[in-house]
């Protein structure tokens, strides 16, 4: 852990989505706590993976951080500035430093724009570029992500899925960001192409000193690309630490279950234990106390009543479980 102040500092980030009922005059009948008090730090040049199953709030966390969605409460500090307090013009300035890459390379590129227009849009929007310098900048960006510069005036549909994702990455790099939120950037890609993009992201991180908030459901990809990882369950971070520690000695029962569920890398390593049955409960009506207690083999009465507070079990390693450190080794 570095001792300098973090690039991104998120505290108690919360987002409630209203649930509406009634046909003609919709009333708010409740809310989903999509993100429920999430806190983490991200240092410059560091990649933090955010993993969890669908509906755990990992994607929403990414978008809240960029203020693409307005949080219900909490704070997001980026480079010492409170992102949530910025006015329109300041926010636009700030957006140069924080960018995003999306999951679906098809949907994330405007089909009516050429590659040149797409990758330079952030700069044009910021008023930095026009005319010839636009083409020059676009060429640089394509070169940076390993796309043939000759393809500059082509349209998205003329590219393969992997190439489209490279275009999306080039667009994110355009304004020279310090942080890129990667929202499942390789999930929609075929394995043989996915590896190329993972390597590209890894190279860019080193060359440009980028920080990533890397949202993924594939734990193996996170293991490869990230230095630290946060595990989310029903809107809360249940465990966060370095990839080495977390993957080797997971402390939260949910993390253990998640890791045990990952299919084997080799037929000789097939799982011998069955995964306990049960689904992720509805976020609309989450369990009391620790959200995980209905699926947890170690749950006690305390877990059913009292939500565990995140505890630092070793420097920089935080677990939200009443019995963290007391459950013995997994497996």
């Amino acid at each position, binding site marked *: 852990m570095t001792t300098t102040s973090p690039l991104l500092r998120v505290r108690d980030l919360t987002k409630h989505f209203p649930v509406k009922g009634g046909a003609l005059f919709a009333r708010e009948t409740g809310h989903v706590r999509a993100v429920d008090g999430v806190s983490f730090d991200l240092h410059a040049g560091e990649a933090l993976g955010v993993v969890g199953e669908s509906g755990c709030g990992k994607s929403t966390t990414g*978008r809240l951080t*960029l203020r*693409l969605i307005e949080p219900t409460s909490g704070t997001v500090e980026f480079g010492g500035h409170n992102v949530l307090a910025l006015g329109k013009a300041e*926010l*636009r*300035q700030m*957006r*140069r430093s*924080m*960018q*995003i890459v*999306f*999951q*679906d390379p098809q*949907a*994330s*590129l*405007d*089909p*009516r724009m050429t590659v040149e227009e*797409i990758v330079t*849009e*952030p700069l044009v*929007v*910021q008023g930095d570029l026009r005319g010839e310098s636009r083409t020059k900048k676009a060429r640089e960006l394509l070169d940076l992500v390993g796309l043939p510069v000759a393809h500059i005036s082509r*349209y*998205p*549909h003329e590219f393969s899925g992997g190439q489209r994702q490279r275009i*999306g990455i080039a*667009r*994110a790099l*355009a*304004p020279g960001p310090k942080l890129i939120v990667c929202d499942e950037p390789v999930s929609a890609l075929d394995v043989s192409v996915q590896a190329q993009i993972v390597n590209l992201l890894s190279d860019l991180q080193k060359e440009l000193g980028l920080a990533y908030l890397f949202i993924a459901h594939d734990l193996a990809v996170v293991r490869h690309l990230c230095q630290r990882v946060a595990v989310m369950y029903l809107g809360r971070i249940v465990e966060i630490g370095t990839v080495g520690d977390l993957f080797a000695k997971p402390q939260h029962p949910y993390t253990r279950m998640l890791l045990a569920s990952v299919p084997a890398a080799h037929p000789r390593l097939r799982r011998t234990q069955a995964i306990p049955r049960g689904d992720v409960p509805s976020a609309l009506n989450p369990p009391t106390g620790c959200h995980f207690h209905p699926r947890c083999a170690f749950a006690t009465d305390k877990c059913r009543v009292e939500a565990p507070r995140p505890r630092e079990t070793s420097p920089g390693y935080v677990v939200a479980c009443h019995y963290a450190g007391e459950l013995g080794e997994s497996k």
Partner: protein
Amino acid sequence: MADLALTLFPANARRTGRKLLRNRAFVAGAFLVTLVFLAIVLAPLIAQYEPNRMQIRMRFRPPSSEFWFGTDNLGRDMFARVLYGGRLSIEIGFWVVMLNAVFGVTLGALAGYFRALDNPLMRLSDALMAFPSVLLAIGIAAILGPSTSTAVIALAVVYIPRTARILRASVLVVRELDYVHASRAAGAGDWHILWRHILPNCMAPLLVQLSFVFAYAVLSEAVLSFLGLGAPPTVPSWGILISEGRSYIREAWWLTVVPGIAIAVTVLGLNLLGDGLRDVLDPRMKIQQE
């Protein structure tokens, strides 16, 4: 057609153009519409007689080699009258489409993009759409008094809510696509996003809708004129021609039938055109094909 495809769909211009040319409905529709337009534009060259030239001795002549569509009660050449009359019908249709394009798109885009405006705008359009369309047009025309612009305004009011709804639906889909989020993350404002990303990607359904509006407008204009609420009778539109011919329907069937056929051919052509466009451009159909 290739030019239109090129401006609207640069990315897929050639592919779209090819698909359109292979679509039978589109080709048939384009043929009929072009035919009608050419005839109307070139009316001074094609027609032998002035549309208002009366030849009393030539009254009620049935269609013949001299008077292709016959003559009316004042001996005026019906061929010339139908061609010139079409001008007004098409003109009214054109302006209704224009007003739809401007106001329908504006209202639809605002309702779809700025969610706070959605409910008031859409409830207003619900209210307008609750009236039978012709009745609503008649009501508006009755208030404003008969004139060409009355017909345009009345018909525009009838169809703008429908166009706005269709555009709103497209905007709702496109605004949630990631390239819109990406643009916002890059610091783009609402107007940039609407103008640069959302509207261009809603062009296809809009174009389809406008071709149908054109057809409906031509048809409804005839109804309004027939009822005496549309254009003044000095420059006859197709509706007025039918209205005038009605008195002589037993003696001179061609006075009503010929303008009726003109309307039918135009509307059929526009509808075929719209069907073809929809088949080729509608994203839902596209998914099924791919």
